[in-house]
């Protein structure tokens, strides 16, 4: 399935390219660009092992999903528990009977829920009638081992004497197939501007096409595509002032960072991770818009095409991480925030404490922040393009 999804665009391109190759003269063909779907991998959203019952959603109903994924990590940053507080806002009048697939250990109604969730093997169930507006909220306790591979960030905490380092790494990169061919810079510039507007507005991508003349080539080598992530948080040691940090992982910036602090005791980590828009890679060079940039100076069409495809893939990947658990309304808006916190080693599975329970210290802490320049995607993209 993953392979099918991953190569869906490529197959479409190959089909189109074959058709184009059969004609006597090269002619323009509309090639579908990435987004809004398919996602490059099956998960997220998480999937359980059992077949879902038939779902029913009244034709007038729409569901928005908001999730806060509480990730409890041990003193070394390993995932110890995962609880997804999912809040579904049902709008419209009608019946609903939906199931959410995931590696579910248990589920309970969360504050504000106007109904009780049901539990089956690897399924959370909701059934009822919406009189116009209804809130369905649940704390879904997930099996940590099954959920961990799909969390957006991996943490590593190391102590070396009185020095503690925290490394946070964007775990979302996946290999995707690009495609290349002869295209029109003004059209690509327009599409880049459209993509940028959608990204900055936080809107889901709309389907879009680019005109290719002649063959569409599909390079053999996949390129890594990540979901850009906004990471904010702090590292705290007992008796010391917390060290706060804020980074974007991806979008042409490094995919990991490291912070260090000095002091004794058990380090406590608190992180908020949000899938974020592509900003940096969609910034037009030396102009307000890509259209203006193309008018001012000659930007190579292959560069524009590659930038367009890669940024759209990043937005699709970011959109994928907005649904850690699926939204039963496939067209509904979904948002996810991932909250990592250090939990006690003996903590039993359950709902973690509310966010914001990390207190402040009283004395100064020697902090060294080291940013790891692991991958600069913008530069990398240009280099790759140069080798095509």
């Amino acid at each position, binding site marked *: 399935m993953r392979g099918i999804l991953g190569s869906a665009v490529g197959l479409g391109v190959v089909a189109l390219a074959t058709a184009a190759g059969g004609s006597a003269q090269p002619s323009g063909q509309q090639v579908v660009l990435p987004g809004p779907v398919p996602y490059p991998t099956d998960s997220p959203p998480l999937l359980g092992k*059992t077949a879902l*019952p*038939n779902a*029913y959603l*009244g034709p007038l109903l729409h569901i928005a999903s908001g999730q806060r994924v509480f990730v409890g990590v041990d003193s070394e940053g390993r995932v110890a528990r995962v609880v997804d507080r999912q809040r579904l806002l049902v709008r419209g*009048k*009608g*019946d609903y*009977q939906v199931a959410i697939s995931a590696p579910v250990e248990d*589920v309970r109604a969360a504050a504000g829920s106007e*109904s*009780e*969730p*049901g*539990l*089956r*093997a690897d*399924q959370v*169930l909701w*059934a*009822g*009638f919406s*009189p*116009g507006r209804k809130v369905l909220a649940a704390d879904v306790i997930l099996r940590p081992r099954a959920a961990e591979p799909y969390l957006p960030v991996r943490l590593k905490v190391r102590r070396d004497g009185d020095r503690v380092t925290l490394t946070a790494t964007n775990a979302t990169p996946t290999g995707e197939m690009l495609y290349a061919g002869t295209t029109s810079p003004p059209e690509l510039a327009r599409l880049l501007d459209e993509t940028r507007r959608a990204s900055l507005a936080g809107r889901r991508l709309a389907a879009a096409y680019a005109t290719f003349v002649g063959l569409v080539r599909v390079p053999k080598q996949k390129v890594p595509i990540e979901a850009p992530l906004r990471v904010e948080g702090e590292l705290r040691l007992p008796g010391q002032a917390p060290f706060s940090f804020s980074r974007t992982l991806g979008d042409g910036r490094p995919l990991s960072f490291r912070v260090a602090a000095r002091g004794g005791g058990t380090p406590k980590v608190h992180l908020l991770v949000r899938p974020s828009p592509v900003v940096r890679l969609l910034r037009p060079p030396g102009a307000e818009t890509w259209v203006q940039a193309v008018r001012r100076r000659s930007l190579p069409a292959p560069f524009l095409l590659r930038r367009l495809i890669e940024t759209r893939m990043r937005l699709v990947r970011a959109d994928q991480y907005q649904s850690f658990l699926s939204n039963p309304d496939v067209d509904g808006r979904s948002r996810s925030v991932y909250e990592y916190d250090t939990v006690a080693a003996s903590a039993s599975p359950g709902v973690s404490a509310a966010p914001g329970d990390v207190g402040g210290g009283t004395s100064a802490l020697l902090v060294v922040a080291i940013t790891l320049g692991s991958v600069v995607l913008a530069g990398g993209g240009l280099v790759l393009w140069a080798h095509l």
Partner: protein
Amino acid sequence: MRRSAALLAGFALIAVLAGGCGKQSAASGGNILVAVDVPVTGDPYIAQTIKHGVQLAASNVSGTSGGVLVGQKSYALKSKLYDNHGSARQAVEDTRSALGAGAVAILTDGTGAAATWQLAQQKGVPVCITYDGASGLVDPSKRPNVFRIAPTDHGIAFRYAEYLIPKGLKIGLLHDDSGYGQEGASDLQKAFSRNPRSVALRMTLPAGSADLSAQILRARRSGATALLAWAQPSTIAALLTAARSIGWNVPVYTPPTGSDPYIRQRLADHPSWIDGLTFASSRLTAEVGTTPFENFEAQYESAYGVDKVGVKTSAGQPVVEPPEFAMYSYDCVNLLAAALTRAGSTDPRKVQAALNQVTTIGANGDERGFNQHNHEGVVDDDVYFARFHDMTYAPVKDDPLSSTLPAIPQTR
């Protein structure tokens, strides 16, 4: 001779191939017994409709569908009827007998379920309640073998609070002193506890009393502008008689017992006294439309005839009762069949566990199922309100859910 042998071999080969190509039916495993424990002599209408629902589903499963596939074998579902007389003590005896007879599940109206579930659980046998909505009867953590497909008292009480409080009525909360009335009163107490101003009085009525004049007079003097009566059909009939005979046209609201044919039969000489009576129950149709319920009703009527109420409309048309509670027992048997198949075993413990994991399409077109946290097959959201007019009822128009529901034909 050689040619004959070749021909024979050819025919044999064709026969083998034909046998191999054809659809193979599973070997017969025999019968699976489902016990039905209902108050045949206590509440014949409820007993009969539950029994018919079970028999119809068992007949469909065993006949049309070729039996329940359990592992590699196909079984016929057979039901055995027990009469609990509406007595918990008798229900315990019936449960012992059913377990002794090897029942894989027990369907009941709910009589004595608080006592019988433990006996059944000793053998892992699931108990499915299809009438009594009392809170506490069903609790997946404490009574893992008890399931229910019927509107719950809790759901009805809270839906009534949701429906009536915004109307600004001063409600008289009445209940009779039967077990049913007391259970309902407890849920009404909880549902209205946050809005005590909307309650004009709370009063217990003597169940079975034909004259409630004094109680109704007291309710009227309390300033009540509506009565919500959680009581047996006979008490509701007596209440309506007492109120209407003194010219008090107070709106009366009831749980599902308000739709019991007994009330209409008792007040057949005064059809207008029934007009405006509102009851709550679980909806008979889903958003997918009326077709599934109509199909079920047609099957039911074809097998058992219509359930005649025994009264007529003003136009002289005989009134019939839609097979509401038959629908619940019908759905319960279908879920049981699905659980047997999923369990791949007739071991009641495995069937009980599988009941938490299966879904079927119910007689009204809704999906029906239980889960590990909830053994209620009717969700509270499905509670609707219907009001009588001319001896038949139709969903009310001033409730979001009810307003979406069509009226079910009740005349023949």
